């Protein structure tokens, strides 16, 4: 069987660059770069998770920020209770151990994705978009009104979580930790999309009626994909909480869902590399343009429109040798 190795090579090359980059940045004494790329990678995890349902599964979920924010708030709230010493709901003690806060974040975002998916996946098309958006906004307003956890102002996490004696406050350590998680999550996505489960998910995107006609209860498969994607966003949120040492309702806002969606579409839907490219480009553009002018969003808009107009498969399709290789 002849399989095209090029998409895999491009992905490998991207990770090689990410691996070498901090050493170059350190040599050039540019720690800000390390922090910026860490942020890009965290968003890349969130965008990759959205890509699993949006790009591969064809489910236009407009509420992905909810899982991302819930993942972040799980870390933040557990930390707040750790500092104050009062247990959460009177029973759950707070903690600053990443080996506990991370699984907790995955659990919370996964359970929420299960509940939201169970309800919203009964609909399709525009209703589905609107219902995912509505549920995510409910979570946003919930956290805005929770004065106990900072309300509008959010929660400050004074010290990052502890993990096996690593100094997570150290930019470089956190960079490699994030890179490891990104590699693991993208690797997992790569296995999933080519597995039996992934074939079914891809089939549902292409023709749900056909899938029912060969005997697939599509709802269950979509729901499981939804939960896997939600947990990926939860992972990204937990990392961001530790990286920014701050969580706020901004993480849950619908514009964050929109940003994640732009990253996926900009980079290339239904490809493993696409969301990573999308996250790097969007965060990169934001950072460059905002350093240059206060009205950076005014310039960002047309750039995005141009890319989407002229590269229908996203940035991914612009890479030589990958054109027409969408949906690897």
């Amino acid at each position, binding site marked *: 069987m002849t399989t095209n190795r090029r998409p895999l090579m491009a992905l490998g090359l991207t990770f090689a660059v990410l691996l070498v980059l901090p050493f170059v940045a350190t040599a050039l004494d540019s720690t800000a770069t390390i922090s910026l790329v860490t942020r890009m990678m965290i968003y890349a995890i969130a965008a990759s998770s959205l890509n699993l349902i949006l790009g591969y599964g064809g489910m236009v979920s407009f509420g992905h920020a909810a899982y991302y924010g819930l993942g972040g708030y799980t870390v933040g709230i557990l930390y707040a209770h750790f500092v104050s010493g009062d247990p959460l709901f009177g029973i759950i003690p707070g903690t600053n151990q990443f080996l506990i806060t991370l699984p907790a974040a995955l659990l919370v975002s996964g359970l929420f994705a299960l509940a939201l998916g169970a309800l919203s996946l009964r609909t399709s098309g525009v209703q589905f978009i609107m219902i995912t958006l509505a549920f995510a906004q409910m979570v946003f307003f919930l956290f805005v009104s929770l004065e106990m956890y900072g309300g509008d102002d959010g929660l400050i996490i004074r010290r990052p979580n502890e993990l096996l004696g690593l100094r997570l406050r150290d930019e470089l350590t956190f960079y490699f930790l994030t890179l490891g998680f990104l590699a693991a999550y993208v690797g997992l996505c790569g296995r999933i999309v080519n597995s039996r489960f992934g074939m079914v998910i891809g089939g549902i995107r292409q023709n749900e009626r056909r899938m029912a006609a060969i*005997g697939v*209860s599509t709802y269950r498969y979509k729901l499981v994909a939804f939960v896997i994607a939600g947990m990926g966003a939860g992972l990204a949120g937990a990392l961001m909480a530790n990286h920014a040492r701050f969580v706020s309702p901004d993480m849950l806002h619908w514009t964050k869902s929109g940003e994640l969606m732009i990253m996926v579409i900009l980079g290339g839907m239904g490809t493993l590399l696409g969301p990573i490219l999308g996250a790097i480009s969007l965060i990169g553009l934001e950072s460059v343009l905002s350093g240059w002018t206060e009205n950076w969003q005014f310039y960002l808009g047309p750039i995005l429109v141009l890319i989407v107009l002229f590269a229908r498969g996203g940035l991914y399709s612009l890479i030589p040798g990958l054109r027409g290789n969408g949906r690897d």
Partner: protein
Amino acid sequence: MAVTEPLLRIVQLVKRFGGLVATDHLSLDVRPGELHALIGPNGAGKTTVMSQIAGELRQDAGQIIFAGQEISAMSTVRRVRLGLARSFQVTQLLEDYTALDNVALAVQVRLGHSFRFWANARRDRSLREAAWRYLEQVGLDHRADVRVADLSHGEHKQLELAIALATEPKLLLMDEPMAGLGATESRQMTELLGRLKGRITMLLVEHDMEAVFALADRISVLVYGRCIATGSPAEIRANAEVRAAYLTEDEA
């Protein structure tokens, strides 16, 4: 003559769309092993009947009994698992996948649940080899690795059939397998159905009368949602009411 229990029994089936009665107290039997053709002028409600048998449309009244079990209220998915497969008039295929992927997926689904997240399904030889055999049966094996979007219309029709066969059905519902095919392709499809005949029970909706009269063991004629005659091809050919129904259409 021995009375065999029909594989599919439709009893007093009714389907209305607003004021239009698309299926009007239709009763029909399909016996095990036979190729039963359902013919009728345009708008007679043939596809509507197929959709109700497959479970995509819910009847307003009446019963559908398949292999001795009432399936009237079952979902499409459960009916497929009982052995009821359908090929679509307007082909429903997975366009980004190859022909082999399409069939392998049907094999995969028949073999059990697909909550397997790790192993590469395209490298699973048990799935690929089984899928290959169904493609061979319909004469599409030489196009196995071509994306569906790049296949011709005739090949899409063949692939529809291969996918339906891969579900190992007891009864195959074929909705106009010849529609849109050229003369040569139609002849090939007729030959193919002829080869499958006897091995798989089929309910065939088709406009190509030459094919229908060559293939069918029995024919039912549907006019305005009602069955006006059922019988052997010779009986149907001789039936005055059928001739009237078709003649009026030809004159119109």
